[in-house]
């Protein structure tokens, strides 16, 4: 049973059949999936959702597929928990982490969008899938394509972290490393998608793909006890995750699954690539493209597809944005590790550091519920941490050597 009526241009409202189309043929506006919310309201209750297996497909009625899910049965429904020690460090009362750094199987929130995109790609009759990626998406497309039996091409910038490249190669896709930025990769994929009969998940089937990100927001609301938080800090690359988390909370409200919410959204970017944060701080709807230069490579999109919409969503929510330095990003990664035992990638460091900054500025209040979005795993981006953390104590395998070399550490542990 399908709850997807068709596709609709977000700008001019033109309607399209639910086929392979990613921009309005008339005005080039963004294409959105149109659902039959009345039918969904009858089918989807809190009880129905809670009784289903713990995966992103528990919200299936709100996802753009016609038949049954075929990809990503074990993806999604990642840990969500109260972060007491981090809350103390940041000086806030009610803090939660939504942790997609342990998403199955590729350790980032991209498993969500790809589960939806590949299920839909199969329905649309594709046998080859592809993507333009800063790393995490390439990992997810490669892994899910391997399991689902698709041919697979992934396009990445040539300068990615080793971990992110290997974590695609192992699934045996064709990896194409492009000498250029992510924005160059993206432009090339837009041109390739017009020529090759493949499903480029974030180009020609992007309207379906992007809907997968809503499940991150659905889970936050469900795991928080069927309510939306007062504040949520979201890392921004294309800006799509921001718009889809906002949509998730709106849909849950529309369906009566959560009470009316006025969640303030905050965009987190790195100073070396902050077109969205810059537009938000200028309260402008013009997102000026930039040439990225940051260690947060997964957020290094200088010309963000959803820049306009994410900026609008943040400003309409009453939220704000900040950008942080590479140094602050590394400190953010370490702070999350030493307080909550979670090892996030650079994008998570950005989220942490931006939250800290906004709390310090008094923009995010200290006494209201706050969620931080951790979207990727630190083991994939080791490079920026090499030589930046406390070095191991190298000793001889003797008691004497331990006591001679580690006396300070022992003293401070005893004091604690």
């Amino acid at each position, binding site marked *: 049973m399908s709850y997807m009526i068709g596709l609709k241009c977000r*700008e001019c409202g033109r309607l399209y059949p639910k086929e392979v189309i*990613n*921009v*309005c*043929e*008339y*005005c*080039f*506006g*963004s*294409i959105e999936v149109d659902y039959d919310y009345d039918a969904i309201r009858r089918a989807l209750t809190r009880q129905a959702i809670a009784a289903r297996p713990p995966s992103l497909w528990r919200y299936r009625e709100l996802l753009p597929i016609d038949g049954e899910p075929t990809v990503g049965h074990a993806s999604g429904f990642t840990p969500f928990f109260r972060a007491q020690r981090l809350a103390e460090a940041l000086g806030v009362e009610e803090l939660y982490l939504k942790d997609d750094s342990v998403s199955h199987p590729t350790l980032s929130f991209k498993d969500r969008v790809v589960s939806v995109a590949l299920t839909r790609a199969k329905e649309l009759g594709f046998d080859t899938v592809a993507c*333009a990626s800063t790393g995490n998406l390439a990992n997810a497309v490669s892994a899910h394509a391997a399991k689902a039996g698709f041919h697979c091409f992934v396009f990445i910038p040539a300068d990615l972290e080793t971990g992110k490249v290997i974590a695609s190669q192992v699934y045996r896709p064709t990896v194409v490393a492009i000498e250029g930025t*992510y*924005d*160059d*990769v*993206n*432009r090339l*994929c*837009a*041109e390739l998608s*017009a*020529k090759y009969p493949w499903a480029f998940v*974030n*180009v020609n089937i*992007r309207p379906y793909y992007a809907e997968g990100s809503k499940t991150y927001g659905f889970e936050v609301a469900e795991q928080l006890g069927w309510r939306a938080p007062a504040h949520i800090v979201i890392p921004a*690359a*294309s*800006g*799509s995750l921001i718009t889809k988390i906002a949509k998730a909370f709106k849909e849950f409200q529309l369906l009566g699954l959560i009470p009316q919410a006025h969640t303030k959204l905050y965009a987190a970017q790195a100073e070396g690539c902050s077109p969205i944060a810059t537009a938000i701080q200028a309260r402008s709807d013009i997102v*000026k*493209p930039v*040439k990225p230069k940051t260690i947060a490579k997964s957020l290094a*999109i200088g*010309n*963000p*597809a*959803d820049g*306009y919409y994410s900026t609008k969503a943040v400003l309409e929510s009453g939220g704000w944005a900040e950008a942080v330095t590479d140094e602050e990003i590394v400190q953010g990664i370490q702070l999350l590790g030493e307080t909550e035992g979670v090892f996030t990638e650079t994008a998570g460091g950005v989220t942490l550091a931006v939250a800290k900054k906004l709390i310090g500025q008094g923009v995010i209040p200290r006494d209201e519920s706050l969620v931080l979005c951790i979207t990727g795993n630190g083991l994939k981006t080791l490079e920026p941490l090499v030589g930046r953390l406390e070095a191991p104590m190298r000793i001889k395998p003797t008691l004497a050597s331990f006591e001679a070399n580690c006396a300070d550490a022992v003293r401070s542990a005893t004091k604690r």
Partner: protein
Amino acid sequence: MAITVRIPTPLQRLTNGQAEVQCEGKTVTELLADLERRHPGVKERLCDESGKLRRFVNVFVNEEDIRFLQGDQTAVKEGDDVSIIPAIAGG
């Protein structure tokens, strides 16, 4: 002086199905005007009522976004490659 312009799929109906056409002009603006003369109807799809490129259309001259060059006043010359690409992609 001929410049190659790559046409996005949604507009290829207006260029008799051609993915690439040849046009002339000294700037991007002149090039788009020539494109309109050869393939009437293209300009209103690419530009809004005031004649400015729509928010969701990106134009590249030799693979560089014209917003990093001189916008629609960016100079073009024979042998250049111009791509018109929908902005909503990626991420």
